């Protein structure tokens, strides 16, 4: 009971240091998985677009966090490091699977999972996802985290290891590109 209370009172960084000393997935690592489960899952689901891939990616993220637990050097917040690992894992999974296959899965999953959604809304949402496919992978991830999850530019800069102004510029350019593509498709 005392051990559980200790784990709850520790900061993420303290737990990470403790997890690095553990030989297996002990109490500190289990507590970290518990703390970051929801956030990692949301990132994976947003970036991959369906539950099956998001589940695979979230598992992969936690395995990578475990295997690389000794590499966290506390130069940034542990949460930022976790989010960075989650984004990079999703991007590499997306690169590994063809765009065509990914799009077909997303469309099929959306139809299966949300049968009661209004057709117009559904079509528009698919439109946005389709338009985002025209973006560079990193830009797409930034736009999704910014607009779907409400991350600030400062958080994006820390996750993508860029300056805040570089993030703002990339998001702005991506938005312009989406705008242009949308005009082209509607005209």
């Amino acid at each position, binding site marked *: 009971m005392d051990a559980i209370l200790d784990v709850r009172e520790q900061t993420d960084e303290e737990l990470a240091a403790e997890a690095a000393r553990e030989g297996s997935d002990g109490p500190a690592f289990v507590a970290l998985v518990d703390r970051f489960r929801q956030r990692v899952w949301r990132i994976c689901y947003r970036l991959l677009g369906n539950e099956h891939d998001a589940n695979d990616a*979230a598992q992969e993220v936690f395995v990578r966090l475990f295997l690389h637990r000794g590499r966290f050097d506390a130069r940034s917040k542990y949460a930022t490091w976790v989010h960075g690992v989650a984004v990079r894992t999703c991007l590499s999974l997306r690169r590994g699977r063809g765009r065509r296959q990914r799009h077909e899965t997303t469309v099929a999953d959306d139809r299966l999972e949300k049968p009661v959604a209004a057709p117009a809304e559904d079509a528009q949402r698919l439109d*946005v996802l389709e338009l985002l496919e025209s973006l560079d992978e990193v830009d797409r991830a930034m736009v999704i985290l910014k607009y779907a999850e409400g991350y600030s530019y400062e958080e994006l800069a820390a996750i993508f290891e860029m300056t805040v102004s570089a993030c703002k510029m990339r998001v702005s350019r991506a938005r312009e590109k989406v705008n242009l593509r949308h005009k082209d498709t509607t005209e």
Partner: protein
Amino acid sequence: MSIDLLEQLSATEVPAPPAELDREVHRRVNHSLLLLHLAELLFKALPYAMVHLAAGLLGLLSYSFTGGRRADGGDRPATPP
């Protein structure tokens, strides 16, 4: 227009994480640990043991035939990895 489009992204609900996520993470972590330990056994522990067993045997043979130990201490085991 694009801002409205992009803001629709936040309207999409994210489902709850699957119940089996923790169990699968635990299983995959243990699988990775098992592979790591096997690799360490195969590529570090066994070669170390074989080299030092061979050194011991050579030392024994050398002592049997010549009646003396090697002067450079080469038949003694080094610091373990």
